[in-house]
């Protein structure tokens, strides 16, 4: 929790960049697919953070240039990646030993909703017509030392994704400790949301108006 970076609302990558700054050197970090993946690119070269991929990689590096793809090395999103010095490779049972056993310092996930008690809903919107698919989200949310969610503060229709109680099926109850959105950084503690930092130009009143549960100022 060192340098603070003010989130610029017009900068879509600002929440990911701010999250990247809050990652401590030496942490073992798993990034969920989608927006969280971008966090890796925001750790500068002077720092050493070890990225874990649940398909059996520690020390994952950036996407290789087109001509340098190793066809036997993909990340959890099934896309080509590289290895950094110090990397190791292992099978799925050992990989989830790391996850379930509490060895991963941080997991960054996207979400449909987060409740004020830290309940996470990010695996299905629950419609009967949909085909369920869960992947490693449930294991990560119960196993990592910290779950930080990186998402837009509000859904496309404007509804808050920070809610009193999740309406979507849960991925895990009481899992999330922090949320990074376009409106700022928010913590979850003692059954409620609190403000850690607001994005530049966002007032507490606006954040409260766009949050579907009480938002405590520290």
């Amino acid at each position, binding site marked *: 929790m060192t340098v603070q970076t003010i989130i610029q609302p017009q900068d879509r990558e600002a929440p990911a960049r701010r999250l990247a700054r809050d990652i401590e050197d030496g942490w073992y970090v798993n990034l969920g697919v989608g927006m969280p993946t971008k966090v890796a690119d925001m750790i500068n070269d002077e720092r050493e953070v070890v990225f874990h991929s649940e398909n059996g990689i520690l020390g994952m590096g950036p996407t290789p240039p087109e001509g340098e793809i190793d066809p036997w090395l993909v990340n959890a999103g099934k896309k080509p990646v590289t290895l950094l010095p110090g990397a190791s490779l292992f099978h799925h049972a050992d990989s989830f030993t790391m996850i379930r056993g509490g060895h991963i310092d941080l997991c960054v996930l996207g979400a449909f909703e987060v409740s004020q008690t830290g309940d996470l809903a990010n695996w299905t919107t629950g419609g009967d017509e949909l085909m369920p698919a*869960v992947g490693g989200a449930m*294991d990560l949310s119960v196993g990592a030392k910290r779950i930080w969610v990186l998402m837009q503060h509000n859904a496309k229709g404007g509804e808050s994704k920070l809610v009193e109680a999740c309406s979507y099926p849960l991925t895990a109850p009481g899992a999330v400790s922090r949320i990074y959105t376009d409106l700022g950084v928010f913590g979850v503690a003692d059954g409620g949301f609190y403000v850690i930092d607001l994005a530049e130009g966002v007032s507490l009143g606006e954040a409260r108006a766009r949050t579907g549960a009480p938002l405590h100022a520290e």
Partner: protein
Amino acid sequence: MIDKRKYSLAEALEGISDGAVVMIGGFGAVGQPDALVDALAEIGPRDLTVIANNAGWSRETGIPRLMDLGLVRKIICSFPKGSEVFKSLYLAGKIELEIVPQGTLAERIRCAGAGIPAFYTATAAGTQLEKGKETREFDGRRYVMERALPADVALIEAWAGDRWGNLSYQGSGRNFNPVMATAAKLTICQVHELLDAPLDPNAIVTPGIFVNRIVQVKADSDRLIAAQRLA
């Protein structure tokens, strides 16, 4: 002399019956035993239960091909998205689906291989996926009891192998393969390199005791990179 090498896919796959429970290794396009799966599709045993992480991608090959031919009754997996064949069969009610969180899937398979009939995990506790399962508190936390998941056959892929069935892997090619190797009555492996000399004992990831048959299928990097674009 112990010699688990087979010299054709058909020979490697001999004896897989209708109704078999078949594990298939791989994650994304890496570590998938595609040649074995495609040869199994040719042989055509019916009413299969498939255990795999994904339901595959392209209709032409792998798990979707088995499904497209109507050979699969049920799939047990963590993430079936991306497979149009599966999706249309599922939405039409023509295939059963058991969704298992990825880590629980890996551990249920490991336990089947390790003689452990059941274990507890916090994964899925307090969610829809605990329905129908026993739950229990240990030290104030809620856990779900999960049962071992064994198979009749495991089809896996490794990088190199020897006549004893010892295997080594490359990159992210291990994934479910070493775990599945332990959990089936019959484990069949396709390798890129089938060596005459034994593998270095310190470098072996899957000891030969877990492997029944091994067949060489030369690596095709271009094909694998193309498959990655679909995954």
